[in-house]
């Protein structure tokens, strides 16, 4: 299955990103495991993230240590639901649902693009490119997303560490295991 950060003999080279861009844009099924860290003057949080994406549907398990205090965020055609120790809830957007039920949120609606190194096509954005031609930062909807580390998994270069800031809020997403094109857990 997926390898962790770039294996020694495989480094990002000029042109790798353009070469795989079509496949990255077409990638709509994956399983990933990672960590979410959130720092703002008011609060700090960290959680495990288990994310299964299938076309436009997703299931995100957000858990604290020991798997306790978990939240399961599910997005499908029919709508978005969040299930946790208090029950099952739904709202128009995942961001509202998280704010209401968890007291914090991430820009989930754009994250399925940002996590692949792509801007969300639905709103204007600027993309800065690094020396190897890979996205270095995306600025969009008030967010600044920096790609700090890349992982090589099943033939794809995919972001391994994203630093997302919005005003005085900093969210860090570290992907510890990428499994593109896999949805069976």
């Amino acid at each position, binding site marked *: 299955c997926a390898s*962790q950060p770039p294996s020694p003999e495989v480094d990002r080279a000029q042109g790798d990103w353009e070469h795989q861009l079509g496949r990255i844009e077409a990638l709509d099924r994956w399983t990933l*495991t*990672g*960590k979410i*860290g959130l*720092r703002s003057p008011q609060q*700090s949080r*960290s959680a*495990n993230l*288990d994310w299964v994406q299938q076309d436009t549907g997703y299931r995100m*398990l957000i*858990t604290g*240590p*020991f*798997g*306790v*205090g*978990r939240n*399961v965020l599910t997005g499908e055609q029919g709508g978005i639901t969040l*299930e*946790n*120790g*208090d*029950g*099952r809830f739904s709202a128009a957007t995942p961001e509202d649902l998280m704010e209401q039920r968890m007291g914090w949120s991430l820009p989930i609606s754009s994250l399925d693009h940002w996590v692949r190194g792509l801007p969300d096509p639905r709103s204007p954005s600027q993309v800065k490119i690094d020396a190897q031609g890979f996205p270095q930062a995306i600025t969009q909807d008030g967010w600044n997303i920096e790609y700090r580390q890349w992982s090589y998994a099943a033939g794809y270069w995919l972001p391994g560490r994203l630093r997302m800031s919005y005003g005085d809020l900093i969210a*860090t997403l*570290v992907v*510890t*295991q990428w499994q593109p094109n896999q949805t069976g*857990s």
Partner: protein
Amino acid sequence: QTDPASRLTELLEPLHTYSADFQQRVQGDDGQSLQDASGHMWLARPGKFRWEVNAPYSQTVVSDGAQVYMYDPDLEQVTVRDLDPKVTSTPALLLSGSAGELTSNYGVSMRAQGDTEIFSLSPRGNDSLFESLEMTFQGQRLTGLDLVDATGQRTEIGFDSIEQNGSVDDSRFAFQIPEGADVIREQ
């Protein structure tokens, strides 16, 4: 027939140190596994423990008896908080607390099959993270811990390669904050 609480105390009191590998499974409501993590736990009762989770969920939780350090190497973040009752709802701390503290904070019932004794604990206070906890002992050895939250979501923890009352070096329960880690102190 001793009452469940004193039987549990009987099993926990002689447990001074404990070391085991663990498998932790978070189950969805239709029983499928949402998350499988593994690692190792060390306990020195009362109050000391170390809970190390392997990649891809790498995390280290250490209690030195006074403070609890939660270190996430991927996020390079350490959360430090005082050891207090609220935190005792975390499984590792629950096990390192004194037996008396445990049975006064939780209602205890028991069922036995052969040499397996399963204790169900429900928190007396309502601020606990979970609604019920089950501790399984096989032949007087702690082999499992299941946590169920208010909506029936289950976390199952199974222990193996268990060593009870072996010698565990005290340095195991000391935590050095790594260079450059982001430290968050929580009240």
